[in-house]
C-alpha cells in the first residue's frame, strides 16, 4: 500500500486512516487512498485531466465534497483519478488538478464518502483523519 493512508477494519464498509503534513497533502493522500480502494493504481494510465474548484463551510465537509466529486466522476466516466496537483487547500476551498484514466484492474465500486466519525485532527507531524466509505 502506498504511504499517506492505510485501510483500517470496518465490519460492513471500508475505512481509511489518512495523514499528511498539511491540508494539501492530507486531501491528496485521501484521494490516492480512494483510488487504491477502487482499483490497482499501477494499472491506470492518467490520460484525462480535470480542473477542480470546490467550496464548503468547513474542512471535513470540504474533504467529503472533494472525495464525492471523484466518486461521481468515476461513476459517470469510469475514470479512476490517481495524480493530484492541489494548488490551494484551505478549510473552506480547494483548487487544483486531478489526472486519471480507466483502470486495468478495477477493485470495487465506492458509493460515497461518509461523515461517519469524521474529524481532521492535528498530530505531532501534521494532520490525520479516518474516512469511512460506503461500498
Amino acid at each position: 500500500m502506498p504511504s499517506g493512508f492505510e485501510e483500517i477494519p470496518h465490519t460492513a464498509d471500508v475505512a481509511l486512516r489518512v495523514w499528511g503534513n498539511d491540508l494539501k497533502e492530507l486531501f491528496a493522500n485521501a484521494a490516492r487512498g480512494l483510488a487504491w480502494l477502487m482499483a490497482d493504481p499501477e494499472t491506470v494510465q492518467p490520460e484525462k485531466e480535470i480542473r477542480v474548484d470546490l467550496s464548503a463551510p468547513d474542512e471535513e465537509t470540504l474533504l467529503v465534497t472533494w472525495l464525492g466529486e471523484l466518486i461521481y466522476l468515476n461513476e459517470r466516466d469510469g475514470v479512476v483519478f490517481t495524480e493530484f496537483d492541489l494548488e490551494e487547500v484551505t478549510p473552506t476551498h480547494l483548487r487544483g488538478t486531478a489526472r486519471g484514466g480507466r483502470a486495468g484492474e478495477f477493485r470495487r465500486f465506492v458509493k460515497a464518502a461518509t461523515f461517519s466519525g469524521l474529524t481532521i485532527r492535528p498530530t505531532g507531524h501534521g494532520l490525520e483523519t479516518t474516512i469511512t466509505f460506503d461500498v
Partner: protein
Amino acid sequence: MVEKKDFRRVDKYIWELPKETRPDMRVPARLFASAEMLDSAFRDRTVEQLINTATLPGILKYAMAMPDFHEGYGFPIGGVAAMDAKTGVISPGGVGYDINCGVRLMASHLEKEEVAPYLRDLTNALYRACPSGVGEPGRIRISPRELDELVVQGAKWALRRGQAREEDLAHTEEEGTLPGADPSKVSARARERGGDQIGSLGAGNHFLEIDVVEEIYDPEVARAFGLRENQVVVQIHCGSRGFGHQICDDYVKSLQTAIQKYGITIPDRELVCAPIDSPEGRAYYGAMACAVNYAFVNRQVLAMGVREAFRDVLQGKVRNFDLYQVYDVAHNIAKFEEHEIDGKRVRVCVHRKGATRAFGPGRPEVPTAYRDVGQPVLVPGSMGTESYVLVGTDRAMEISFGSTCHGAGRVMSRSQALKKIWGPDLKRELEEQGLVIRAGSTKGLAEEAPAAYKNVSQVVEVVHGAGLARKVARLRPLAVIKG
C-alpha cells in the same frame, strides 16, 4: 466505555441500555439478540452508534437494533428509530446511501426437478437480461422528463410503460409508490447518475438468485403467500443505484448547516438531520421519496427481465414458465406510519436502516391477499446460504414499530474476507455444492463470502423467538448472479 454488564436483560432476546448510560441519550437503547450474539455487538461500533441514535430529537420509546446488527455509518445496520412526526427529526444517516435497497421475491409454478436441466441456461439468460456490475447501463432508457414522472409515480409509471402487472403493484410495499416525492428537490447530479441505471443490479452485496423452497414452517401462511415445498422461486436484491447514493450524499452535506440553524447537537456528523416539519426536512423527504420510487421501479423492471429470461429458456419445455410476485420490501427507508404508543395512536416517521417492515395481520398497509395472516418479510442469507420468508406479527407492532431484521449481517470486514478467502476457490467450493454462479468479479465474490456473515438461521431464530416475525419458509439457492 459501555460493557455487556451495562445491559439489562428485558427478556430472553431483548437487551436494554438505560437512558442514563450517556447524558445525551433521550431514550433507552435496545438490542435484539441471543446471549451469544450480544458479544458481537462489542467487536465493532454497533453499541456506540445505537447510543448515538438514541440522542436524536423526537425519538420515541427506544433506539433499536435488530439481530442482524453491525457497525454502519450514522445508525448501526439493523437500526430502527421512530420519530414523532410533529417534534422529531429526519436523518439521511438513518436511511443510508442506498435508499430503498430491498428485496423482491417471485415464485414460479415449477418444481426444482423441472428447472434442473435448464438451470445453467437460465442463469446465463438472467445474467444477460439483468445487467449487473459497475458501469453497466440498465434495461431501459428514459428521458429527463420521464425520470421526473418515474420518481413521482413509482411502480405506477412502470405499469403504464408495460413494465409491470397490476398484481405486482398490489404485492409491493407502499404498492410501489411512496407519496410525497418531489423531483424539484433532486440535484442535477443525482439525475445524471440515475438516468441510465433503471433496471440494473449494481455491485457490492446486490444479487439475483434462483432458489428452491426447502422447508415450510407454517403451511397456512405459506399457502396464502403462494409458496410450497420444492417450488422454484427468484429473489432480486438491489436499490436506487447512483440516484439514491447522490441524493443521500447531497443531503448529508447540505443538512450540516441545518443542524446549526435549528440548534441540534449530534454526536456524529453522519447523523445530520433536520426537523421533519421544516423546509430542510421536507426537502430531504421529498428527494428521498424520489429515490424510494426509483428503487421500486428498478426492481420492477428487473422482475420483467427475469420473466423474459424464464420465457426465453423454458418456453415449450415446461408447462408454465410464468412467475408471480410474492412481495417486495424495502430495507433502507424513512416513512410515515401510525403506531400505538402507550395507548395512543401516534403519527411517526420510522427510520429503518438495514431493517424491514414486518406488519402484523389486519393492518391496512398489508395487501388484501395477505391481510388475514400478516405482511411477508423477506430475509436473504449470505451468498450460497439459505434465505427465509417470514410473516409480520402483532408482537412486532408492540415492540419494534412493526420492524424486523433484513439479512444475515456482516461479522467480517471486506479486507479480512479478501485476506482469508480466495475468490476462485470459493467459486469452486460453491459450485461443488451444486450452485451455479455468474459473477462479474471473483474479488467481489470473496468479499461477500458466507464466512463474512452471521449465520442467517441464528438471526432468524432470534427474530422468531423474540416475536419480531414468524418463520414461514426456508429457501435454498440453486443459482446466484452477482455484479
